[in-house]
């Protein structure tokens, strides 16, 4: 299947990436070329194959639930674009 401009805009919205309208056709072309490459997968019958999520089929390791990290709020918030009183600031969400 082939993606049109409207679909590319929808995907960009889902991904929360602003793309200028002028650039949408170029993205559509590139994405369709990549999807054409990916279509080769359809030639393979995988009905009896289990999906592989981890190369060594290892499951998640569990550990005891205990505090290991010190509080470094000031260090971490020093990296933020905007903070106030220990809080991260974003545009108003609720009117």
């Amino acid at each position, binding site marked *: 299947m082939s*993606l049109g401009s409207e679909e*590319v805009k929808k*995907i*960009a*919205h*889902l*991904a*929360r*990436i*602003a*793309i200028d309208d002028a650039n949408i056709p170029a*993205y559509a072309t*590139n*994405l369709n*070329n*990549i*999807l*054409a*490459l*990916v*279509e*080769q*997968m*359809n030639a*393979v019958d*995988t009905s009896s*194959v*289990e*999906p*592989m*999520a*981890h*190369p*060594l089929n*290892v499951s*998640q*390791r569990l*550990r005891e639930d205990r505090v290991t990290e010190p509080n*470094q709020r000031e*260090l*971490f918030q*020093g*990296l*933020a*674009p*905007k903070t106030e009183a220990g809080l*991260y600031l*974003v*545009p*108003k*969400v609720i009117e």
Partner: protein
Amino acid sequence: MIEKTIAELSAGLAAGEFSSRELTDAYLQRIATLDSKLNSFVTVTADAARAQADAADAARRAGNTSRLLGVPFAHKDIFCTAGVRTSCGSKMLDSFVAPYDATVVRKLKEAGLVTLGKTNMDEFAMGSSNETSYYGPVRNPWNLDTVPGGSSGGSAAAVAARLTPGATGTDTGGSIRQPAALVGITGLKPTYGRVSRYGMIAFASSLDQGGPMAQTAEDCALLLGAMAGFDERDSTSLDEPVPDYTAELNQPLKGLRIGLPKEYFGEGLDAGTAACVEAAIAEYKKLGAEVKEISLPNSGLSVPVYYIIAPAEASSNLSRYDGVRFGHRCENPKDLLDLYSRSRGEGFGAEVKRRILIGTYALSAGYYDAYYLKAQKIRRLIAEDFKRAFEEVDVILGPTSPSPAFRIGEKSDDPVSMYLNDIYTIAINLAGLPAMSLPCGFVNGLPVGLQLIGNYFAEGRLLNAAHQYQQVTDWHSRAPAL
């Protein structure tokens, strides 16, 4: 002194032929003089390097005999370095100063390596030419009009040009091996889970693996020994003992069973590259190895599978860059959606955006089974091909890249043609196996890489096979004139 390998520098430091400070100053001087031609470093940490070198010299006087003590080194700018900008080649992280060290950085620091700086790379490690970096392309020191490969292109070019004796790289689909091949150095991608991913900025978490890049297999053995090991801070780190990789280097290769996958020698392989690989096979026969043809029937599907799995995982991993807690934020956002969308639209380059869009699409409602699940199933078929092959052979050998370095700009407008550069490397990441690239000749003055693939945790065997080859050839000691 700057021509020496890490093993030679280590011996020279131990014998008191030069101090770490002298060595560090020599490399810093070389970077200052030559890197304007290559653009291989994003950040040079000269003052910190001199202080680390002085500390290493003091530690040596106090009796520390660590083999890596005082040897200069560089980190790909994907590894978090406390107090030093960690950009990942992106505008998004242009002003990000990491608050902590990656486990790999910490371990190599503890081993006594001196950090010269951070190397350039494709943005978020997405690329095979180092052209997607926000800081501009890196140039191949063998021919400044050509690419050094990617994504670890800065590390590769810096080692090749002898601006550092070694560097870290990361390999998600070939990003250590392909640049190592294109600039004529030795690089190793370890078994998935062998080296901690903690503090290594995530691209595709089920594929990403860090590893060493240096002139020789012996140097890679020294570096891997210091990098590898279990880390409770990486949930996919494997709790396997770390052998002394240098201990296996000198074993004779008599009786080593080498498999040649017929799929790696077919259409699409440049004739000059094929001739270099054939000559390497002849060397291995002389060393006593037994060579046989094998088949990896699903390897042709590795590129399509990868371009679903890697972008899908990337789209999830890169959702953390939202302009709120760190990284680029747009000016005057009108609401939260605008803050997210414009911060990401401005902060990411075109290739990163493409991959996030593909991944978002592949994971979106109604398409998951057709793309991501399908890709994971074929991923198993690819891994099983290798499993069968390793019942018959010890090592698999082939080219690293289908051709030598291409010209800057030649493929940058055509993502699919760029992706096909990694046709011989990607399957190894999908299977989670260790593999390395080592220099095996030149075509028109450009280096050619030989790829060796091993079974899980067989890094020692690979390094042994590479080291023995490097005892009877000198491709690895050729350096470009700059």
